[in-house]
């Protein structure tokens, strides 16, 4: 049954910042919730992230950034994913992201933006209800 296959998630850190506490906590929480989680580590270029998403055949990509470079780097990740034909993944983001930027990020195709203080249960249910089904 399609439903029983675990959801595959890539948690990635674009840009140069090394603040990986949030990314690791989310990766661990999603894994504890039964998902298959691949964490890229820090300092990933948009190309590396898109390539990992393709190779690992994930349904979900979560990006974490705390340096303030999200408006520059997120569109590039989306672009790189598209150029590899990865256009059916659920995108979400986390980190230090001002509320004013959320509309722009949603317009890029991100379905959720989770800031500091988020309950990981909210992220788990967000992913479960929005991840595209695999046939």
């Amino acid at each position: 049954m399609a439903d029983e296959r675990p959801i595959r998630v890539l948690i990635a850190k674009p840009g140069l910042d090394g603040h990986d506490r949030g990314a690791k906590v989310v990766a661990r929480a999603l894994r504890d919730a039964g998902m298959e989680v691949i964490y890229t580590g820090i300092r990933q270029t948009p190309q590396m992230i898109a390539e990992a998403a393709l190779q690992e055949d994930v349904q979900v990509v979560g990006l974490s950034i705390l340096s303030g470079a999200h408006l520059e780097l997120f569109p590039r990740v989306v672009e790189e994913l598209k150029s590899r034909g990865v256009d059916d993944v659920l995108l979400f983001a986390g980190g230090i992201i001002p509320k004013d930027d959320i509309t722009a990020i949603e317009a890029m195709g991100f379905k959720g933006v989770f800031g500091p203080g988020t309950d990981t249960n909210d992220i788990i249910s967000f992913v479960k209800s929005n991840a595209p089904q695999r046939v």
Partner: protein
Amino acid sequence: MSNSKQDWLDGTWAKATGRNPQRRPRFESSSGAEVDPIYGPEDLAEWNYHEKLGYPGEFPFTRGVQPTMYRGRLWTMRQYAGFADAEESNRRYKFLLAQGQTGLSVAFDLPTQIGYDSDSPEAEGEVGKVGVAISSLADMETLTDGIPLEKITTSMTINATAPILLALYVAAAKKQGADLAKIGGTIQNDILKEYIARGTYIFPPRPSLRLITDVFAWCKDSLPEWNTISISGYHMREAGCTAAQELAFTFADAIEYVDAALNAGLQFDEFGGRLAFFWACHSNFLEEIAKFRASRRIWAKIATERYGSKDPRAQMLRFHTQTGGATLTAQQPLNNIIRTTLQAMSAVLGGTQSLHTNSYDEALALPTEKSVEVALRTQQIIGYESGAADVIDPLAGSYYIEALTDRVEAEAWAYLSRIEDLGGALQGIEQGFQQREIQESAFRLQRMAETKERIVVGVNDYVTEEEIDPDLMRVDTALGKRRQQSLADLRAKRDNAAVQAALKKIRAAARTNENMMPLLIEAVEAYTTVGEICGVLREEWGEYREVMTI
């Protein structure tokens, strides 16, 4: 009437809690150790004043490293700042100095920290974001313009590229005509915690450690007032570890640096007095005070028992404190002023030498001028109005503070010996030990917030609906382009033959044990850029790869 703590616990306390239970079944320290409802003389039964505390300015320095502490002068109020380009940051520094700040603390952008110039492709989107972009001496000259480097001390949060940024600072000071014997300040220069938590490493450990000892050796004679390293627990704490882990992981790193310097032929007492430390201050008010006190006692023991130090200056743990960035909330941001105030008070009661207080909007963006001013005023109010700075180590002798100081110390020693068993800090890092421990603690804290065992006001309780963020600081998006242009101009007009010659010498020295500092100064004086120098060193030494622990 009870005759002892146990008596009271069995009688009066048991009766009272039988009627009305505690609001929580168990109260804990940050490491999860149970905290009693009361402390008394029984908890200090074996405790000896002279052995545990002594007097300020005397071994084991538990009560403070200076005899006069804040009666002589208050701690250095040092706000970490830097953004956009050198010109903007220079303006912020002058503003802070005009507001009564007493030392500078430079934040660099990530490309500068990782050895990329502002015009390098890796720098895209990151230029000037989390700190100031410095690629060449021209930038450093602008950054320090109108600031007398002989009179002010500067702390630079820089690690992988620390020797290069120090070379730039020295070159700028020389251009001001300053006497290098009078130049004071600190570079963080602590690469091991970058591998563990902060992430701005470039090279593998061995050449990185060599650069650090080059700085120790060069500064000893050429820049005698400079603190050559700030061995930092801050970032590991921010990444999630406990107070005792913060101490243990930091001292394990310190031991690694000291051993590297001893292997390079230096004597402990020659450089021990130039080692500085950097602690976080989180929200458990009393435990943090105990941590600061315990840290001084531990270092005094390491210096004397392990390294046979004879010079008290090399046994004193001097430290900078920053309040806990990770304790700030994006929700109800004004509450962060109160959190920061309490944490700053802990740092003062714990005897810090310098302090950065976070601004209330830092969980949202870089701080604005207004929020930074409130943060600085917080320190001034503690210093001038609260009375907390008028008596040295005023909480000494409190049963709880002393019991807690002993406990944090014991927990830190236990962790330290686990790391020693793994073969030291570096071995631990390569096996992912510290990284995993930190992750576990971070995850535990997250879970405790989610189950409400830990209340974070405004986040998981006392929540209100909020619509918009307060005014936030934004870095000009055209900055990257301007920086590219100014670097292109610099490369066109400098003496490129001198640059190539300097880079050639650096490449050659990378293959030997020659001290790198004089060569770096020569290179930056010819306007060789940070990225060009790191490019050569990357080719020679390769790059570190993260140990995956999740």
